[in-house]
Structure formats: structure tokens, C-alpha cells
């Protein structure tokens, strides 16, 4: 899932202070799962803002959508946004931008910082696992992502900085390639570590689009 964290309250307060009616929009998918922007967080944030702006008379509305990354769900707000002069989104960066596209005449402000694609370690505890590099190498690295975990994102490692199981940047940071070594040797396929992997095409880090196989013609037909 996409993991996000709520922005510091002061930052949010400064952003909304110039508006009279603010609609806080939560998202019911990833950010709800990681306890940053679901229905509960919308209510909590609004309560805090109501207290902070008690004297200024700013009104805060609340809506939580199924997802902010699908236009059909954003359309559920069509009849509501008119009464607000600003939207405060608690979705990930993708959702915030799509909300802003849906309502281009309204200022759309982010209430969360989008952190990473990661996993749930325990309630409220998450760890980054994927950088969406677009060229997955997990087959040859024993299911450990060097792009995410290695400070240098090396496809062929370890480097000279590997330091007794940890990375040279910090002793708390495990060395990704040590983990890979352990995993591969545990599976009896350590020889694989000697295979040289070609570098990733990092020029792919521009806004990317995906059309699933079999849907090219559909998209051409429906959007021409």
C-alpha cells in the first residue's frame, strides 16, 4: 500500500487560515489502512482545526471517499464542493492531484505527506519496500529489493561499504546485499549472486503510463 503521514498541525493550520469554509476530504483506501487519512483521521483533524479556529469562525466539512484516485468517486463531491472555498485532501499525492483536476477552480491543499510504498509491521508501524523503479529484480535478489534497501540502489552488490551486516551510512541500517546473500544462501542458490544484472533504465523516472496488455485497442476505441 501507499503509506502517508499527516503533516504537522501548524503547517495545515497556516494553509487553511485564509479560507472561510474548508472541506476535509479523506480517502478510504491506502491512507485509511495506514491510519493517516481515513474517516477517523478526517474527524480528528477537523476537531483540532475547529478548536484552533474557534474565534475565526472557519467552518470545516468532512467527506471520506472510497478512493481519490478514481474520477467516479471524486464525482460524488460534485454537488458539495460549491459551498466550500477550499479542499483539504488527506489522500496520497496521486489522490490530491486527481482531486485538484476534478475541481480546478478550488484550491486543493495536502494534509498529509506521502511517504512510500510499504508494508504493515504492526498497528501504526510501516516500512518502505518498493520504489516503483519499473524494472523488478526481486527474482535474482532473493525477494529483497536492493533499489529500496541499498543506500546506493545497487543492482550488483555489495559495495565496499558493507560493514558487518549493516550499511556504511549507519549501523541501524542493514546492508541490503548482506540480506540478499543470506536469503540466497539459505535457499541454496548463492551462485546466482555472481550474475551481473544490467543497470536499470533510470531515464524511466518521468511521469509514466501503463496500459495493460489487451486494453490498448479498447482505450483507443473508447477515447478517440
Amino acid at each position: 500500500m501507499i503509506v502517508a503521514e499527516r503533516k504537522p498541525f501548524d503547517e495545515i493550520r497556516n494553509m487553511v487560515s485564509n479560507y472561510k469554509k474548508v472541506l476535509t476530504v479523506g480517502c478510504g483506501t491506502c491512507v485509511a489502512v495506514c491510519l493517516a487519512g481515513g474517516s477517523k483521521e478526517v474527524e480528528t483533524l477537523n476537531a483540532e482545526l475547529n478548536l484552533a479556529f474557534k474565534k475565526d469562525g472557519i467552518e470545516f466539512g468532512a467527506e471520506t471517499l472510497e478512493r481519490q484516485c478514481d474520477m467516479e468517486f471524486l464525482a460524488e463531491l460534485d454537488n458539495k464542493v460549491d459551498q466550500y472555498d477550499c479542499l483539504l485532501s488527506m489522500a496520497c499525492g496521486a489522490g490530491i492531484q486527481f482531486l485538484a483536476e476534478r475541481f480546478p477552480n478550488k484550491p486543493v491543499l495536502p494534509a498529509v505527506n506521502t511517504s512510500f510504498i510499504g508494508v504493515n509491521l504492526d498497528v501504526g508501524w510501516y516500512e518502505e519496500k518498493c520504489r516503483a523503479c519499473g524494472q523488478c529484480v526481486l527474482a535474482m535478489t532473493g525477494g529483497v529489493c536492493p533499489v529500496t534497501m541499498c543506500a546506493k540502489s545497487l543492482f550488483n552488490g555489495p559495495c565496499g561499504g558493507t560493514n558487518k551486516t549493516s550499511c556504511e551510512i549507519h549501523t541501524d541500517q542493514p546492508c541490503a546485499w548482506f540480506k540478499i546473500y543470506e536469503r540466497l544462501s539459505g535457499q541454496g542458490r548463492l551462485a546466482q549472486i555472481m550474475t551481473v544484472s544490467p543497470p536499470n533504465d533510470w531515464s524511466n523516472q518521468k511521469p509514466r503510463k501503463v496500459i495493460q496488455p489487451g486494453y490498448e485497442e479498447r482505450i483507443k476505441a473508447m477515447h478517440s
Partner: protein
Amino acid sequence: MTTDKCTNVTEKCADTKENCDNMVDISISKDVLVIGAGSFGLEAAGKIAAQGYSVSVIGVKTACARQSGCTSKMLETGKVNIMQDVAIDSLAGVTGDFRATLIKNAGNGAEYSEKVEKVFGAIVVAPQYSYSTLNKKYGLTLNDKVVSQSQFEAMIADPESQKKILNGVNGNGSTVAFLTGFAQEGDPTSTSRVLTSALAVQNMENCNAYIYAGNVKVGAKGLERLFTQGRHAGVVCFKPSQMPTIEQNLNDGVNTVKITIKDPVVRTDVELTPDYVVVEEAVVVGQQNLDIASTLRIDTDLYGFLPSNNVHRFPAKSNRDGIFVVNNSLDAANAALKLKELIGNGIKRVAANKAKVDEDRCVICLTCYRSCPHGAIFWQNGAAAISPAACQGCGICASECPMDAIQLGDFTDDSLRTSIKDAVVSAKDNQKDGQPLIVAFCCKNSALEACEAATKFGHEMPQGFRMVKVPCAGKVDVEFIMKAFVEGADGVMVAACHEGNCKAERGNIYAKWRVNEIQKRLEKMGLEKNRLIFTTIASNMAKEFAGKVNAFAAAIK
């Protein structure tokens, strides 16, 4: 089993146990929305109101609306509410329970606009198209003598201009030439307009009408009579094989047009220098109508007109149940007729299990909502829901669902898997040596009948050929095609309706897309690409069906 998911289910039916399991009563709102207050919109509104339903008409009332003649009568019934400054902003819901957001003061640049949500059982769209004059295609410049069909209609409706035509240049009438059907394909409406105007001219004292017609369409009620009436009155019609030679002289204060055609019988040129030239017009769809179509999620035809063409559909119906499109008087009557069938007394009994969503599996990815050609799917309480009233049972949604969360009542995935396996097993038993084992997925609207007829008529097909019946080619999942190969088929054929002839609008196209994609993958799996084919067929093409199967068998032998 009832579809409690659907908001407008009121009560379980009191039928026998078995029937009750499959049927459900649905409440249908008795309010009707008519979009477009032109003559046909108002005509439809009048007919619907006469059946006892309340009608709200939105849109600007046009001048020609008065001609429909039902405005005042309608208002007297108290059932028709015309709201001129209102437009439709968005639409949710399904047939029987459409929730429309109407916007007041729309598009007038007014600062104040108000939105209201209203529930309607059905919607009638009466598009108001505009015209563009095709004078350039005839090499003509418009002026007081060369006018468009609309301009001419306005002239004969206006007493002052009419007098001018009547007087002509020397006070003894005018000659009017109509040019139609050379600049475009033509349609019955434009033919009707020309014939009506020409007759009006001919009926004026000392005036003569000449029609130069290329491609004319006369397939509409009353056109033949109108044509004969004109001929009897003295209207002269030319139907040359090509566009006449037209010379417009605008030099030195002269303003004349000379029209020349070659008479193929007497082999001479026939020249005319009319006082007025009336040029045909093309109908322009306009962004407004396209916006309405996209708001209502109804398809347009190849040229953008509403609705899309579908031979399986009753006239005036759109691809969405409960949404009608009215383009003429006949449509207005048809829409009123079908609307009564739909709304009735407000309760409709429908099959409940045409398609059902497994709510536990559904992740509301919206794929079904986006794929459904009938706009029958919505979502509520965290899952997709299929309206039993709007669903046509084509199965496109079920095949597209990434979670296999949708099952058709008559064609569940399990039953289709069994059919595929049975088909292969029985083919193996009968297969002759050296003959391939072929599984054909046959759409029940076309290929199934063609296949059955081929068997009945005794057209020879390979012993190892077996058919699997599907509700629409759109229900042929990628998984089913693969399963046929895995079970042991040598070749798989997906037989759909011809393009443009699918009952479910695009089930055949979905099937074609899927086949194209699997063909690409087959080679990587080590099978020849030609072991899978997509073909289209009509139900009356028994011999052709057998031919296709035999050709396929020969190709993969």
C-alpha cells in the same frame, strides 16, 4: 434469493417458491424527465403525461415547439412542468430510479446557479440539432438570392418575405431551385424539408419550384405522398447522376445563378436561371448533445447522433434501459409506448439473478461499472451492485471482473468450465484420426443458431467439433479460451455477431480484443497463433458457419 443490494427493491414477490427465487419486484418512479423542449420533446412529454405520469421538461423551448400543438393542452393536464432555464448536470442510478442533478440558470453566464437532485423513473432525450449550410460544396456564396434551407423556411413563414417571392422581379412570380443530396448522403428529414418548401412555392401564384436531387432518402412516413403531391402541383424534379454545373455571377451588380444539367434522354443541356436558389443543410450534432450523451452515458452513432444504432433494440430506446431518444414524431410515440411498459403502475417484476456480485470478493475497482454497455452497474456499501431491471445478461462485466466476483445466473463460470470440459471429452470420443479437436464458443444471438442450423441442414463439419454456448461473445473469458486448450482442444474458435450487430453493443469487440491478445501470448506458450481464431457470423449463415469450421480445421490439421 432476492437482490437486496438494489436500493429500489421493495418487497419479495408472492409467487411460487421456485419463481419467487428468481424474480424480484422493483419500484419504479412514476416521474419522467424530458431533456429538450423542441417540438419532439414536447410531443413526447404530452404523450407521456396523457398516460398519467408527471413529466418535467428541461431546456429552452424552441419556436418550432409551438408546431407540436400539444403545449397548451399539456399544461392544462397539470402533469407537465416545463423548466426553460434548467439543464442536467449529472446522473446517477439506474432505470426506475435515476437520480438526476438539475442545474438552474445553466449556461447563461449567470453568477447564481442552483442545483437540485430529483428522482426519475425514466428519461427521454429529444436532441436539438443545429444546421450548417452546404453552399460551399456547391461553390455558392449566400446572399439575398442564394439562401439556406432554414433561411428559406423562415422566408416563406414571414408575410413580408413571402410577398417578395410572390412578386418576383417583374411582379409575375418567382422560380425557386432547390439543391439537395449532392453535398451529402442525405436523410429523410432533409428530403421532407425540401419537398415541403417546394410544394409551398408551387402553391404560390405564378411561382415554380425545381428540385435538383442527388442522393435522396425517402424512407419515412408520408414522404412518398408529399412527393406525389408536389408533382401533381407542378414541382419539377431532376435527378441527374452528378452535381449540376452551377455558375454564380456576382460581378458588376449582377446577382444570378445558372444551373445546367445534361438530360440523358434528349441529350441536351437543360439550363435554369432561378430567382432563388435554396441550398441543402447538414445536421450538426453539437457539443451540447454530445455532453448530454456523456452525462447520461448513452452511446452515439458513427456520426455522433443519439442514440447508437442497434438492430436488436426497439426504436427510440438507447443502450441504457429507461433512457429513450426521440428524434421525430414516431420516436415520441414509441418512447411513450415503451415507457408505459417500463413504468406501468410503478412496480416491475424482473429476474433477480441475471448477474450477481459477490460482495466479499468485490474490491470496487469500477471495471464492471466502466465496461457495462447498458449502464446497469452502480456501487453502494463498498461493493458493486447490478440492477436486475437494467441488466441485459450479456456477461461482459463478469468476464472483465479481475476478482471473478460477478456470476451470471444462466452462465456461471463453473457451468461454463464444465461445458468446456464436456465439449472436449465428447469430441475426443468421436474424433476421427487425423482430424483436429475444435471448440467453438458461440454467441447465442448469432453463431449458436448458425451452428445448430448447420447441423440440422446436414452441412458436414469435423467429428471433433464441439460448440459451447455463451450469452454473448463478451462472456468468453480469457480463462475459458485457455481452459479449452488445456483440456486438449487443437483449435479454439470464438464466433460472435458481426461488427455493429452485437445485442450488447460491444460484446463482440471485447471478444475480438481478448482473442487478439491471447494470440500474441499463444506463440510464447509454444502454440501456433492460428490455433485460435475470432470470427463473426449471422444466425442465418448456416452454410458459411460450416465452411468456417471446415476451413479452420484444414488450417490447423
